[in-house]
């Protein structure tokens, strides 16, 4: 269903043969914006996590500006209150709650600077179970889809987040190191070597994924596209896993996300809509004209994880680990293997008649430079 609404942006592709797109930074006067941004769901069954931040001027070096030491509470229509406590870095977390599904709830925020914010009351929306997560091999890579349905035909609007995890391997074992002008054994135990060889990368979704069955007779989501992994991606070189989280949305929340997506992701082509005002469900009580970004919905979450193994995928990943032969001469060694340069991993000839060393990029020998060597619990 997503497709229907993003149709126009596809049209421009035809123009690809003649059109031209280039990076551009408009000369926009730096405006000091500092609006509150509220992200998160009220979770009726479990922990509610809310993130508070502030908007930043364009081209600001920081990515985010967390809003610290705010007082956040979940308030029910029946006047119950639950604290959502700051855990640092702008993240606020409640205790594991069991909210009354027949009540409406909202979020109250009081910032350190005295601003008071309220979201609209929202009904608790139960999220249906994910039926399945499937994947298909297409020309351009592995497409992962989600399928769900609501037998009550009540949900209609859905949002998904996902977390990808994949195992990576170093290309070579980290057996040597260059210290004080000479190459010596790295002196690592098998276990330590393995810790530099086996790693996992974890990545959260970056886009807004929504779907709707509003136009269908049954509340069925069939193969909503979640992610596309090109065959050349390292993600599917060893083993890959994706955890998909599904949230039920009401119509207003769905419109909010769709609008945010339109404004910030699918924009710019000839037939795309123009950016328009983004109105969430949070207002500043102390200054009603202040723009607040965010929509706080109340929905439970359903998760599903799948694994994809290397032997199921025709991977075309190339490790890009270029090998350099370094002659065993102090000058050569210093030139190639000095600090910030490449690392040796194999000898040419055996000690003491070593002619030279094979060396490659550090990332090909130490996977912790790219990921974590702590095996995820689900692996």
């Amino acid at each position: 269903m997503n497709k229907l609404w993003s149709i126009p942006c596809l049209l421009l592709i035809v123009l690809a043969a003649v059109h031209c797109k280039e990076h551009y930074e408009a000369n926009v006067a730096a405006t000091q914006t500092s609006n509150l941004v509220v992200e998160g769901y009220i979770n009726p069954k479990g922990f509610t996590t809310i993130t508070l931040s502030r908007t930043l001027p364009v081209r600001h070096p920081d990515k985010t500006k967390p809003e610290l030491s705010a007082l956040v509470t979940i308030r029910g229509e029946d006047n119950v209150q639950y604290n959502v406590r700051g855990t640092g870095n702008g993240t606020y977390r409640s205790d594991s709650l069991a909210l009354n599904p027949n009540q409406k709830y909202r979020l109250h925020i009081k910032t350190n600077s005295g601003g008071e914010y309220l979201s609209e009351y929202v009904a608790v929306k139960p999220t249906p179970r994910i039926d399945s997560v499937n994947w298909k091999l297409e020309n351009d890579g592995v497409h992962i889809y989600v399928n769900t349905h609501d037998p009550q035909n009540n949900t209609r609007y859905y949002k998904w987040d996902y977390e990808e995890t994949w195992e990576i391997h170093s290309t070579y074992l980290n057996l040597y190191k260059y210290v004080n002008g000479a190459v010596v054994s790295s002196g690592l135990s098998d276990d330590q070597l393995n810790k530099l060889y086996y790693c996992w990368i974890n990545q959260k979704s970056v886009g807004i994924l929504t779907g709707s069955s509003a136009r269908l007779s049954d509340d069925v989501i069939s193969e909503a596209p979640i992610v596309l992994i090109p065959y050349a991606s390292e993600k599917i070189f060893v083993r890959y896993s994706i955890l998909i989280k599904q949230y039920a949305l009401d119509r207003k929340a769905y419109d909010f996300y769709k609008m945010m997506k339109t404004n910030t992701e699918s924009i710019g082509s000839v037939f795309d809509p123009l950016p328009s005002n983004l109105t969430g469900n949070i207002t500043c009580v102390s200054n009603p004209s202040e723009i607040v970004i965010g929509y706080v919905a109340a929905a439970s979450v359903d998760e599903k994880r799948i694994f994809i193994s290397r032997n199921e995928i025709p991977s075309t990943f190339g490790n890009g680990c270029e090998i350099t032969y370094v002659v065993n001469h102090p000058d050569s060694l210093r030139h190639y293997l000095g600090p910030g340069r490449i690392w040796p991993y194999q000898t040419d000839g055996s000690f003491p008649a070593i002619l030279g060393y094979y060396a490659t990029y550090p990332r090909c020998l130490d996977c912790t430079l790219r990921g974590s060597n702590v095996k995820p619990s689900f692996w």
Partner: protein
Amino acid sequence: MKGLHYYLSFCCLSVAVICEAQRTRNPLITADFRGERIEQFVRILEQQTSYTFYYNPVDFDSFAVTMSVKAMPVEEVLKSAFRYTDFNASFDTENHVFLTKGTLILTKLPVPGNRALADSIKNARLINSADRTGFKQSFANEKLYQVGLKTQQGKENAASVTVVVVSAKTKEPLAGSSVSIDGKDLVNAIDSTGVYNLLVPKGRHTLTITSFGKKQAIRRLIVYGDGTLPVEMEDEIRVLEDVLVSTQRNTAVNRAPMGVERLNIKSIKQVPAIFGEADVLRVILTLPGVKSVGEASTGFNVRGGGTDQNLILFNDGTIYNPAHFFGFFSAFNPEVIKDVELYKSSIPVKYGGRLSSVLNITGREGNKNKYAGTAGVGLLTSRINIEGPIVKNKSSFNFGARTTYANWLLKLLPDAYKNSAASFYDVNLLLSQEINKKNDLYFTGYISGDQFRLNNDTTFGYRNKSASLKWKHVFNDKMEAVFLAGYDGYSYSNTSDNNKINAYKMSFDINQYNVKGDFTYTLNPKHILDFGASSIFYKLLPGSFVPAGPASLVVKNIIAPEQALESALYIGDRYDVNKKLSVSGGLRYSLFNYIGPRSTNVYAEGLPKDESSLIREAEYGPGKVIKTYHGPEIRFSAKYSLAKNTSIKAGYNTLRQYIHMLSNTTAISPTDIWKLSDYNIRPQFGDQVSLGLFRNFGKDSIETSIEVYYKRLQNILDYKSGAQLVLNPHIETDVINTKGKAYGVELMIKKRLGKLNGWVSYTFSRTLLKMDDENIGPVVNKGQFYPSNYDKPHDATFVGNYAINHRFSLSLNVTYSTGRPITLPIGTYYYSGSERALYSDRNMYRIPDYFRTDFSMNIDGNHKVHQLTHNSFTIGVYNLTGRKNPYSVYYTSEGGVINGYKLSIFGSAIPFINYNIRF
């Protein structure tokens, strides 16, 4: 030299005639005729003179003469006897006299400039065109034409002469010809059908007719009464160095209406166009006051109006989507177009229904004399045109078709799009039939369609259809009428069938049925009344969404059809008060009925229209009027001549629009829909005042003008954030009414003729919108005026064509404009895993300025008249400087970070070649 030559030959002939007269010694007649029949009459004359008379007794069977003459020359006797009849007498040098009825026998070879000869033909009757096909222009120029019957001679001193100017070759009427009588230009000789009404004193006159690309025609007239004079204009194959044919004498300076641009297809073809295909709409965009948002859009904005505020007519048929292939081509085949008129300000009273402009595209009637055709081959399109008589000199057809083979372009795209396909076509058929002198019938059929499919998923298709039958009837010399009945349709249909569960077909349809009657009543040449009535019945299918394929779970969703009747009554008056002052005023009363069957939502007054303010749903049965809107529209313009070549003009116009395009993209896109005004959506209203100064230089060869205007727009539709426009059964909750104002000054210098011709224009204009009513919805930009998407304050264009010789010409087109307004990020925030843009108030920034140069060379094959085919090439470069003109600047979140981009439709110079054959 030529003048001297004529002068000499004239002298010689005069002398010769005098000598001859002396030698003949005209005998005198004395007789008393008492009801003599022709035989008796001739015998008496033969008895008293040495003349021998020749005649056909059958022609003279109704002849009888009763008169008494005494010592009267024989010519005078004949003249008196034949007065008030169509009998003629010709004398030759051998004392032979030929008596004829109707046609005159010429006894001398015509010699240019010989007035004496013309004088000798006393009673020349008007000869109809069918009899004169063999006559050469030079002869026609010297002949004396009688207009009206002598017998008609009444008391009035003036008579109405209708001059019908047609091409000698094709018999097509020549519009925009200039007619002058006795050396004086006719101020209001402006007509699109080539018919000119003159009021002249009875007696002798010299009429000079000039028409673009034709030899000047001179007609010597003797006017006895009201009558018609057909004038056939011969093609001017060669332009002589020493003859300056000053055509288009009725230039802008002399006309009362303002803000009118006329282009014939010849000048349109000279302007370089992308891919070499002459394009009506691209040329329109070079005119002052006409703008577009960018290159991939054929929609255009006139004086601050929206793209849906232009009434685009092809032979009176409304064309809703005038673009092919994402706007790269306009949907009009240049081979079947005769000319194009754009009304920006003084919109004739017979047109209505759109706020900003009327673009009237007139199709070319087929050649009534012989079969002809053209074929063109371009990089992306091919076209063909065949025309010819059905019954010679009576009826003709003109057929044109175009198609594309753009798929090769798509093959160049990355593999992911290899399943894409795009095609378009358009087909035109124009038929014309002359029933008799007073009745003509015209049929126009038009269909254009586009179909494209991207990457094997969704197929988009849209189609314009139009068919009309027009009957032109001349009641008498003063009154004529055009009656039209037609159907116009626009529809689109998008299908997606990749995912079997979600497979759908989405479609939209407009159907309109028109009837109109348009009358022109010429009180006298200085005073013309136009009046009439028109009615359009609309039937819209606002949207349907149906499953495609048996596995599809899509719910059939069909929005109830909309019906409406838009009617208008109008009267307009064009009046030349005196030589200096002309006024043109009109009143159009339009009436719009939104008709059931349909259910309508009724909302609480003064509250934003949404689900919470919905009071009830009202159901209306078939034919029940749900809502009526009506009101007068004023059209007024006046011209005052300060000098022969200088005039000032002023105008005031109001217009109403009852059908609206819903689109929240900047360009016309194939998913835009149209919506009728209904219970909740009010009609748009606009008014405009304009003022202009016009001056011609150098024998009217250079026209200059300055026009200023101020325009107000009311109830134009804007959209709430996140508006759902497609398949929305309650669109009124997603749209808001906006006010607008536009003002500007337009400067134009135009040289129509000569080796170097073209125009330079500069426009300063602003278009501002305002949404400040909190009762309607959230205010935009704090309720302040903000620039519209197509607000481009500075705009300058040069269009030039230089003919190096008759076979080789160069064309150059240079355009500059301020970048259009856009909304840019003023901040960033982090949400849903990505850095995102926080937008400024609407349209507070601009994209970089636009500048483009196009160049083309037109090479004609040899100009020998008698050859099977004529060939020509057009070679050129679009965007010669290769400037990457931005279409838009935008910021998008990719992989978690914001990236800014500048999108150019054409990132480099684009060469093109086009090959044309005429046969």
